[in-house]
């Protein structure tokens, strides 16, 4: 059984993006050498990167034009995109997960291999959380309040977590790692 790990940057007020889609300017408050090294280390552990359609399209657009160590990894790692609308996905090494996203991800978890990581994809995450498919949250808490935006956690039931790690960064970001207890 592969684990499903969520990695996201969120503001102190709990938003993963500002009031408009892809308003991610706040990422600059935490991005730097430390987070870059962390990302590379983390990408080494990834078996499959799982996305919702909207995040997938934005990521594909960004990383296929980018260069550097992280871009190389993002472009070569296996991707899976949960979608009802896409018929093809052109970003290198992508599989389409058609149909019910929860069923498809459950099947994906049952495969052999390294862990599954979800970046962004807040709507898909809400379904996965509800279905109990998330094993771990890694959140980089950015030192900024946005005042408006799209919440990372959507309303659902009560869930207990176990804090595994707390790592403050020089930029003022704090990387928090939680295991989901249910």
């Amino acid at each position, binding site marked *: 059984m592969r684990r499903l790990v969520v990695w996201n940057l969120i503001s102190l*007020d709990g938003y993963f993006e500002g009031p408009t889609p892809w308003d991610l300017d706040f990422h600059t408050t935490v991005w730097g050498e430390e987070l870059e090294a962390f990302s590379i280390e983390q990408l080494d552990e990834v078996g499959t990167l799982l996305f919702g359609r909207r995040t997938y399209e934005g990521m594909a657009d960004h990383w296929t034009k980018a260069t550097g160590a992280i871009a190389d990894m993002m472009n070569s790692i296996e991707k899976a995109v949960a979608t009802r609308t896409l018929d093809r996905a052109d970003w290198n090494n992508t599989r389409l997960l058609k149909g019910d996203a929860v069923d498809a991800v459950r099947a994906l978890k049952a495969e052999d291999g390294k862990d599954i990581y979800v970046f962004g994809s807040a709507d898909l995450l809400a379904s996965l959380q509800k279905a109990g498919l998330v094993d771990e949250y890694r959140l980089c808490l950015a030192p900024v309040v946005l005042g408006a935006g799209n919440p990372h956690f959507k309303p659902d039931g009560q869930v207990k977590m176990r804090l595994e790690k707390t790592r403050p960064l020089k930029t*003022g970001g704090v990387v928090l790692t939680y295991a989901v207890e249910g």
Partner: protein
Amino acid sequence: MRKVVLSMFVSLDGYIEGPGGEFIGPEWSADLDAWTDKMIERFDTLLYGRTAWQSMAEFWPAAEGNPEVGPAQQSVARFMNGSRKIVFSRSLQNARAWANSSLATAGIVETVAAERGKPGKDMVIFAGAKFAQTALRAGVVDEIWLLTIPMLFGGGTRLLDGGYQRQKLKLLEARAMDTGAVLTRYEKA
């Protein structure tokens, strides 16, 4: 210059109370008690909206000296009862229900500005989501201290609910408690 600190518990998904308005407090421990004892030394004035002041006024006066309330809570009770409390309310006639309380005679911006010029320790907002939001939107909060509880409430009242300006913050401290709660302290950058 005296500062205003917002110091609250919050769930990982950003809620201060649960979906039914219920209070879900942090797990208490020696670690949290030690932090609370240290924290309260910084303040001599509490700022309240009506709702939180009324519920605290029912609890703290009776807690002090009550043997059923543990020793760690006693120092908090002495602090809560002995500190000055400024209550912002349009409907209260007086603030006699809790010692050392007074009604603000002006709005939050004017009142806080006047208080900053006086000698004394810092001011703190401990309770009340609605009042915390008012203070944030009025721009009077200098530091935000959050104790993040390792739990998703799944709904309820959000603490940092928007409507204020985008603001970069400087991380002052990030520390895990023995219970898995994480204390993060920020000031305006």
